[in-house]
């Protein structure tokens, strides 16, 4: 992954001839654009990228990235990505999934790729709906969501993708959103830089079946008040005038007015994604609107050996111990015995 292509790659290198088949106005276009911009900047030769996906609107992604791609089956992308990475750890593997693909049918595989810490970059497009199958509720739809399959409103508590990732003790957890190409690109680069599994939730708009679902978070009217940009070393401030901050009251986060007439800035928590204890990530991840601002950026980034490197290391040490196995050493063992020609009648 470290060799650089001879001519610098550009976005165009990653655009395929295929017509892009999302609905006009779908948030997926902006994500595609961001990833096509990110790839040339990673110093990875074009042929070393592999984009894997499951099934869903979002999972059409590989078709539109001009490199190796695999549009697999619903929910099973993590398994295929793991196989690719185990077979060839040098490849830069990106896994695209949706809230249905990744958290409904594919939840178990996601759990296990996260806990195994396979060095794959996972982008979960969260539009809180099943797009491809035309609008049923998804496991991230808020309670009460009325869809074709829940005409009286959904009754089950949604999964918070970041809390789920934390529950799996993922080593890199981030969130970004489809209307901010710059933020997406920066987040994707950080995910790539992380040696281990990277989990990125992308808030994404489905204009057809769940239009404006994220407007309370990043809509033109709300975003200045609602988005909390996480910057390492910076206090957790938000609001148009950065006059509100997140403080802790015991183990309960609170938002307070900061500065004149309010709390002193020194009481505001300072962002540190590298904290090993999960309490801080839990706090950030459980903050949801309307009570809290919505954090975006890198929530957590800790180090742990990756699965595929440990698998390869064991191969190396086995070879150190037993030598590179030959076919003879495979067949002939200490338990063998020999029967000589003509030794027996019969």
């Amino acid at each position: 992954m470290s060799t650089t292509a001879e001519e610098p790659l550009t976005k165009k290198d990653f655009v395929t001839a295929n017509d892009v088949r999302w609905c006009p106005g779908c948030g997926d276009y902006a994500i595609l654009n961001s990833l096509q911009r990110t790839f040339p900047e990673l110093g990875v030769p074009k042929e070393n990228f592999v984009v894997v996906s499951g099934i869903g609107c979002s999972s059409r992604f590989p078709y539109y990235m001009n490199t190796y791609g695999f549009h697999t089956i619903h929910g099973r992308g993590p398994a295929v990505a793991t196989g690719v990475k185990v077979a060839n750890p040098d490849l830069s593997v990106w896994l695209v999934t949706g809230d249905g693909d990744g958290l409904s049918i594919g939840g178990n595989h996601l759990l296990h790729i996260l806990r195994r810490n396979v060095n794959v970059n996972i982008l979960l497009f969260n539009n809180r709906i099943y797009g491809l199958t035309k609008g049923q509720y998804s496991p991230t739809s808020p309670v009460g969501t009325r869809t074709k399959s829940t005409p009286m409103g959904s009754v089950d508590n949604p999964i918070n993708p970041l809390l789920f990732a934390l529950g799996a003790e993922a080593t890199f957890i981030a969130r970004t959103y489809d209307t901010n190409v710059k933020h997406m690109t920066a987040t994707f680069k950080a995910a790539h830089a992380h040696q281990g599994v990277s989990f990125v939730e992308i808030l994404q708009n489905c204009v057809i079946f769940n239009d404006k679902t994220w407007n309370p978070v990043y809509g033109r009217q709300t975003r200045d008040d609602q988005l909390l940009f996480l910057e390492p070393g910076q206090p957790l401030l938000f609001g148009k005038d950065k006059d509100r901050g997140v403080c802790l009251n015991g183990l309960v986060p609170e938002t307070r007015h900061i500065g004149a007439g309010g709390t002193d800035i020194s009481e505001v928590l300072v962002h540190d994604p590298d904290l090993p204890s999960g309490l801080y990530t839990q706090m950030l991840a459980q903050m949801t609107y309307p009570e809290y601002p919505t954090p975006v950026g890198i929530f957590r980034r800790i180090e742990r050996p990756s699965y595929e490197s440990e698998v390869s290391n064991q191969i190396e040490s086995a070879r150190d111990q037993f030598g590179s196995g030959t076919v003879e050493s495979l067949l002939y063992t200490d338990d063998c015995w020999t029967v000589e020609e003509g030794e027996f009648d019969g």
Partner: protein
Amino acid sequence: MTQVTPGFEERQSIVVRFAGDSGDGMQTVGERFTDSSVMVPNAIATFPDFPAEIRAPAGTIPGVSAFQVHFGSREILTPGDEPDALIAMNPAALKVHLDDLTQGGLLVVNTGTFTPENLKMAGYETNPLDDPDLSKRYELVPINITELTKETLKESPLKTRDRLRCKNFFALGFTYWVYGRPLEGTTKFISEKWSKKLPDVANANVQVLKAGYFFGETSEIHRNRYSVTKAAVKPGTYRKISGNEALVLGFVAAARQTTKELVYSGYPITPASSILEMVSTYKHFGIKSVQAEDEIAAIGVAVGASFAGAIGITGTSGPGMCLKSEFMGLAISTELPLVIVNVQRGGPSTGLPTKTEQSDLLQAMFGRHGESPVPIVAAMSPCDCFPVAYEALRIAVTYNTPVIVLSDLYVANGAEPWRLPDLDEFEKFPIPVPPAGEPYQPFARDPETLARALGIPGTPGFEHRLGGLEKNTKGEVCYEPANHEQMTELRAEKINRIANSYAPLIVNGDPEGDVLVLGWGGTYGAITSASKTLRAEGYKVSSCHLRHLNPLPNDLEATLRSFKDVLIPELNSGQLAMLIRSKYLIDAKSLTKMMGRPFRIADIRDAILNLIPS
């Protein structure tokens, strides 16, 4: 030409069954007995018969564990129909196995365990040893093995409980005496296994083993001894091997013929777990093994590995096959090389997880949605797993297709002496490569095999996208009606053409006659033995065993039509028979058995004779 040993009654072959509680070490003594027979050398076949996965309470019927060895001076193909000797270590073992013992057979019983409590657990109302009939019908040898073991070890530093654990070696020692077997192999085994870490255990076991042997020699209790002369064995180097072991070795050896690495990805399930376990000990061969979170992920990892240029292999048993079926469809649609092993066990559902059956053939053929043909190869014996693994890999890589290997619990757990192959006997196989200098078309095909050529991630110039949607030659998603029909037919035709690469069918016996017994998988021994014996008796009976179940061999139809009747014995309700009948419109007869047990030779013999008008 047989060499007669003085004091022994000469037999051509003998079947011994050890049976006791799962805690009694019956598998251990069975394997030791096998090893010592192998070294003679005798021809052998074995049948380990475990209880259900979970330990049952000691002394109960479900807790009984058995191991049967068939050894002889001629070719031995099955573990034998009825044991000539039964060593029963407790009442439950006697209860379960006595009915199988041949009339007049040797019956060694550990009387020390026939306590009222044990008798009750075995469901005996009275002590069966008190029944005078028993010694009339069998050559009864009651020995208080428990007591004699204690006695032998009265000086041993071991605790009573541990002393008693040695009693299986007493039984073994006595059996060695009956059949005139040397003790050396076993004493060597014992000392290699325990001398270093538990020298007291090693000593005790050797002592007890010898005590058993000497007991035979000195006591008056039993007079008949039997011997089997050395078998005529093809010269070469041998080792004992189980089906699952041979399978793993076959994969590794075949992969060595290619430039590709192996990635084995599995999820534990009886009786396939040992494949994953063995593969994990072959890391120095560069094989990567993954224990996935479930069977779906296991095949997914294998598919990903194949896409990335390795050869993905996954193995499981029936319930896992259900879970892998959707991914098989993807591998069929994307035409990636892949090997899927199904070590069959009794179904449906959880069924009889520790018993054998051949009831997943039609699942292998049709267990996916859509038109999704896959080649299927089946192993007929433990040793045969080696060439079958090799063949599966050859087909997978040459044709870029998933391949299903059908084994079964009986083949997987059974062990037999294996003459190490000369790898030059095995055909090398080339891997299709994309033509250079042309734009890469992922689904362009070799005109002869119809195989596509893989562009491997990491290789510049072959960038492409795969997926399960219908596609055209360029690999682009394509919904055109004519293209779908054409691709469906090409995928089917590619599989059909694999039959052009088979070796000719082997018919055991004359190429024409009254009855052809057609089989597949682990029934090989019983079928071949039955038809051979009948031929020797003058019947026009031949047998033929299929390695390839899909596509069926090109020369099969002519073979079948050369016989008046075709009999297909299967451990299922007639699954191969159904394929044969449909394809050739031949009125093949089914012989079925669904008892979680292999066929006895007699089962097949009777069915053949039934077809021959007398």
